[in-house]
């Protein structure tokens, strides 16, 4: 079996290095060629791996190539190896495939941006890091990729660094991601302490030939002789889930994702919808044996995921920024994926991951096209009636929206059906009420999904245009800030008068570079689910050696599930039609307390602000006047508060007087001697 994974990594890395080092001097066309070409070749390598894997017997679809010995001393031995197995193959296809389309889209989208080369080099770096994350064959290099995508995300959210909001969002994302990295690092230390190694093969899958054994579990051929204590496994799995939750924006570590929309829209599409945020889903699927063997973890995962799915969906129903609607929708869908995994349907989570990558990337691209056309406008209260002006975008949006709302036979239908089916099956086999609750949450969320998706579509594309006149160019681009856009047309006075008759006169649909990726993804959003239907679940079978067989849903359960899911979605769409489609959409402010509650995002951010940040700041101010400046600069305000304050106290001790320093030395010496005296 082929293992060309190294090319999937090396090519984007090469692209990143070339663009990063020389990009400034290269012509734009060449930048685009390098940026997209490397990803296309990487995709080709991943595809070659995949095809050769299909030609291999199912039981031997693993190729683990060790490239070099990273470190070996005593019992510590870690190799840098790349793994090609069904799970990583699927992930690599999605990452490079969708990644490639988004690269092409960016050629058009970022055409006017002065940071063109920087953008493509960062994007290539992201693909490299993500490929490393999914192709690593041990937890250490998973961590390396994990940190790398975090870094890439940080750089890309803050891409328009002249906007304070972008910088704040990037910092927020970084802080939350560091929390996740920390969880992963601790999990790795615990894994190492427990198993003495970090390789997937040894810990997760076992390989009798090499004498490795693994933890007991449904996928393990040769269970570990010394079974680690359940509590240890639980701790490891929970720490892994903390990492996954931070990366995949699950409660309560979700706060960064909506703000991450400050990045350019292709970034939102690639990183904050299609690939990076699914790293957590991948991690849980990868560590499926661990999660299965660890007692009590999967229900926690399910609870968090269900909560997130519902929570995010309700917020998405009241947002007016179209990218934020999609961001909350992403959170909600990620919740679905974890729900499927929690119900032991690890392959259903991955299935939804792939279809979600298609349709959410498509939706973001379409949203980007709208934003691009409207010169940076993101508020759907100022849109409407764009269907005629942007036909391609409209139809792509509809395709993506139907997939997201899980309407038969679009891609999202099959994958969401698989997840809900797995939960229902789990509920009926175990008979535990909690799973039924989770299922109900899933169905309710499905209805909400239909509602907010079509609220968005109706609000943007139907009815009358509600916005002002549109400048011909500018998109959402910075620098300089979007506010500078009017200034960029100094002679606009005359034209402004002329165009007042039709404010959308200069609005045009997307160009070729943006259109083709959208069309391809639209096709995938329509047919992308057929490889995982309940009748012939090819993907489930393909992933079974890694992720285990999903619960088999058939007969009455299947019919019930499909009926309920579809009914909920259609009901949601119908409600959206009544409210926003049938008559002129109204986004007037409302006093409905529930809506207000949703609009304020359950006051979670406010809660964080009031419960954690403000008291800390208050305490800090009390103790040190200039704390705020220090803290704001130091990263998050809360952590920065404590740190900044204690740092200030310490610095006050650093008086600059040599005698005080000598006193510190003397005190230290005395303390040590006194300690010894006390000992005796």
């Amino acid at each position: 079996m082929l293992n060309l994974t190294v090319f999937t990594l090396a090519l984007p890395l090469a692209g990143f290095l070339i663009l990063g080092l020389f990009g400034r001097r290269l012509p734009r066309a060449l930048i685009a060629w390098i940026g997209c070409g490397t990803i296309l070749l990487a995709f080709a390598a991943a595809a070659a791996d995949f095809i050769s894997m299909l030609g291999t017997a199912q039981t031997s679809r693993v190729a683990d190539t060790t490239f070099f010995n990273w470190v070996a001393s005593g019992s510590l031995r870690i190799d840098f190896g790349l793994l090609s197995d069904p799970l990583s193959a699927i992930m690599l296809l999605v990452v490079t495939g969708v990644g490639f389309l988004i690269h092409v889209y960016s050629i058009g989208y970022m055409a006017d941006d002065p940071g063109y080369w920087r953008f493509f080099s960062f994007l290539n770096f992201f693909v490299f890091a993500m490929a490393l994350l999914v192709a690593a064959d041990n937890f250490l290099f998973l961590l390396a990729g994990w940190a790398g995508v975090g870094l890439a995300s940080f750089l890309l959210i803050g891409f328009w660094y002249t906007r304070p909001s972008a910088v704040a969002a990037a910092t927020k994302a970084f802080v939350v991601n560091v929390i996740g990295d920390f969880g992963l690092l601790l999990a790795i230390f615990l894994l190492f302490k427990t198993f003495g190694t970090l390789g997937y093969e040894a810990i997760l899958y076992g390989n009798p030939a090499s004498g490795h054994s693994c933890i007991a579990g449904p996928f393990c051929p040769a269970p570990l002789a010394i079974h680690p204590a359940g509590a240890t496994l639980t701790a490891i799995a929970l720490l892994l889930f903390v990492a996954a939750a931070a990366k995949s924006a699950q409660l309560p570590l979700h706060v960064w994702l909506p703000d991450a929309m400050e990045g350019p829209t292709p970034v939102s599409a690639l990183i904050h919808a299609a690939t990076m945020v699914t790293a957590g889903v991948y991690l849980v699927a990868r560590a499926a044996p661990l999660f299965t063997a660890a007692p009590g973890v999967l229900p926690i995962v399910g609870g968090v995921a269900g909560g997130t799915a519902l929570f995010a969906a309700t917020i998405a129903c009241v947002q007016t920024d179209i990218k934020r609607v999609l961001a909350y929708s992403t959170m909600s869908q990620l919740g679905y994926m974890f729900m499927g995994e929690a119900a032991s349907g690890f392959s259903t989570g991955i299935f939804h991951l792939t279809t979600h990558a298609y349709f959410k990337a498509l939706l973001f691209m379409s949203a980007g096209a709208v934003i691009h056309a409207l010169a940076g406008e993101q508020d759907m209260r100022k849109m409407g009636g764009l269907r005629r002006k942007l036909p391609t975008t409209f139809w792509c949006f509809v395709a993506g929206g139907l997939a997201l709302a899980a309407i038969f036979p679009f891609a999202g239908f099959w994958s969401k059906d698989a997840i809900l089916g797995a939960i229902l099956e789990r509920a009926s086999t175990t008979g535990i009420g909690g799973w039924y609750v989770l299922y109900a949450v899933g169905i309710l969320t499905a209805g909400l999904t239909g509602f907010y998706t079509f609220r968005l579509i109706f609000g943007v594309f139907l009815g009358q245009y509600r916005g002002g006149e549109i400048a011909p160019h500018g998109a959402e681009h910075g620098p300089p800030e979007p506010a500078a856009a009017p200034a960029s047309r100094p002679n606009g006075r005359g034209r402004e008068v002329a165009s007042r008759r039709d404010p959308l006169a200069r609005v045009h649909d997307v160009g070729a570079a943006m259109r083709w990726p959208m069309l391809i993804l639209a096709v995938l959003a329509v047919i992308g689910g057929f490889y995982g239907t309940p009748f012939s679940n090819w993907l489930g079978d393909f992933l079974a050696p890694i992720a285990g067989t999903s619960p088999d849903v058939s007969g009455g359960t299947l019919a019930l599930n499909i009926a309920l899911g579809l009914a909920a979605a259609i009901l949601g769409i119908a409600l959206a039609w009544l409210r926003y489609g049938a008559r002129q959409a109204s986004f007037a402010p409302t006093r409905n307390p529930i809506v207000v509650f949703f609009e304020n995002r359950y006051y979670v951010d406010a809660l964080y602000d009031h419960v954690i940040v403000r008291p800390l700041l208050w305490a800090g101010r009390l103790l040190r006047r200039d704390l705020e400046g220090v803290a704001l600069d130091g990263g998050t305000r809360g952590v920065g508060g404590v740190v900044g304050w204690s740092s200030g106290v310490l610095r006050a001790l650093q008086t600059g007087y040599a005698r005080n320093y000598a006193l510190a030395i003397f005190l230290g010496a005395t303390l040590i001697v006194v300690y010894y005296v006390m000992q005796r």
Partner: protein
Amino acid sequence: MPLNAYLIVGALLFTIGAAGVLVRRNPLVMFMSIELMLNAVNLSFMAFAHFLDSVDGWMFVFLVLTVAAAEVVVGLAIIVAIFRTRREIDVDELNTLKG
């Protein structure tokens, strides 16, 4: 005299020297205090060497003596250098570097 007598004198001298470093502000006096500390150590070394009948302690004393001399020279050199730019030396005035 018992070993402990020497050791206690050594400890006293050492402590006095340390206190001198802590309370005095004139660098010259601080150097003297440090020399006192070093000589207190020398006393302990010699006492130990005598009572243990071991040559190591004597060697140490020689080394400490020469090192102490070198330290004095270096200290004086730095003081001279500082004298060139300011008139008086108070160690507490050297506090532009802090925080």
